[in-house]
């Protein structure tokens, strides 16, 4: 090249767009839930009842989730949710009644799979610029003097 340009070239592989889930369509983040139960132990009794009676309706209401049932003997019952961000959430199901198990399953279905982060101390985070712009001391009627 005879002349050097002041600008850096843009490489084609770096041209990408950012996700906007929910702006036009929403992709639910939970893709699979695996239920593991024991066939004998009483701690899995409520889980077994749930699997026999309520799992079918959960599957019908959530066709985007793959539901897997595994027998895991002599262990406590769990529900493991797999998410699109490659993370998983494990929820123990012992100690809950059937409606409690339903609530935990709903929790797994609603979750995004992201790590739980404390929101109390976080300042505003946004992908868009501020609506009113950032204040400038040069753009007021009287020049701002420090």
């Amino acid at each position: 090249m005879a002349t050097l340009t002041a600008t850096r070239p843009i490489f084609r592989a770096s041209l990408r767009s950012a996700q906007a889930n929910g702006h036009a369509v929403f992709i639910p983040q939970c893709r699979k839930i695996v239920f593991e139960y024991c066939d004998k132990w009483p701690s899995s009794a409520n889980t077994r009842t749930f699997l026999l009676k309520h799992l079918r309706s959960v599957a019908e209401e959530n066709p985007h989730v793959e539901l897997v049932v595994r027998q895991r003997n002599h262990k406590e019952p769990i529900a493991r949710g797999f998410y699109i961000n490659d993370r998983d959430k494990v929820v123990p199901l012992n100690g809950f009644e059937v409606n409690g198990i339903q609530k935990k399953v709903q929790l797994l279905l609603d979750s995004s799979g992201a790590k739980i982060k404390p929101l109390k101390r976080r300042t505003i985070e946004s992908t868009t610029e501020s609506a009113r712009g950032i204040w400038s001391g040069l753009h007021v009627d009287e020049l701002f003097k420090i």
Partner: protein
Amino acid sequence: MQNAQRRLASTATAQKLKPTIPLSSVRTFPPPQALKPKDSKSPIFFDSDTWAASQPPPPAAVTAFAHRVGLGKLTTSPKLIQQACTHESITLPYSKLHPNKPLPLTNTNLATLGNSLLGLFATEFVHASYPHLPTRVVKAAVSAYVGPTTCADVAREMGAAPLLRWYRAPNTLLRPAVLHHEALSSVSRALTALVYQERSIEAAKSFAHNYFLSREIDLRAMIKFTNPKKALALTVEKFGREKPISRLLKETGRFSVSPVFVVGIYSGQDKLGEGFGSSLSMAEFRAAEDALQRLYLTRTPPDQLRLPSQTFTGDVFGNLSSLKSTPYIPGELGHAEVNYGSAGRSSIVNPANRTLSEEELEED
């Protein structure tokens, strides 16, 4: 801990991308080919990665994926979706592992068709939304909306990564190595083509708009200038306005270590752009950039958008769709950008055209 840190990035990603199969999809595990029979002493040639990659995903996972993307009612069987998730790199190892079985259907043709469709929808959308955008920026924007990186990202965000069947083929003399993002990008393109094939072009258009063209791109970062003052002067001349003049609007700290100058660039009475800087020339540069960006980034409001693909009615077989098409009113064509700085790397400037009277005078 130190050894883990020293591990190369390539091996780390290779570990992460090793094919994994859900146990629910395999009947007998470990596979009989992997086990050595008691009688024979011959060695067994079994590659677990190839075997894992050639396993089909469980039908429940494929159906769930189809429903997640809104294509649950597209077909009755998950075979088409499975075809969309199968990259052609799987055929060679599959044929070696299962010489008697028929080869799995791959998504190459679908991906090519989907690529063309996405390019069509993206180009008309970008051009209609930003009528004054320079050509090179339109091309960059189209790449950002439906290019290879975005297609791979879309496929990953849909959850196609565990369903993708591919093989990391090495470099050969005839074709380069197959990369994971390349295989993934074929999935989202193939899905667009599937929607076109099974439904109609309008359905494919709405699929493209929902999953690709609703994403966010940084258009401002794609507009770059080497000499914005010159480009602005030529553009203003093209629009038939007065020559641009820059005026100092505000300043502070001129001889200090941190001066700030605010310069406005005017064409007659109209302020075209404003810029700040720590030097007068920098502020003028930014003002010219601002003026050009205000022109290039003028956007048609989405409700007033008129896309040429509105005139496509009907499906592949020429049957008119039941939806009544509204009469198409073409959008206004934007002014083409000036030649300077628009033709990529060429810095050719055309000499100013002489009028006929001048030439006649010269002849005399």
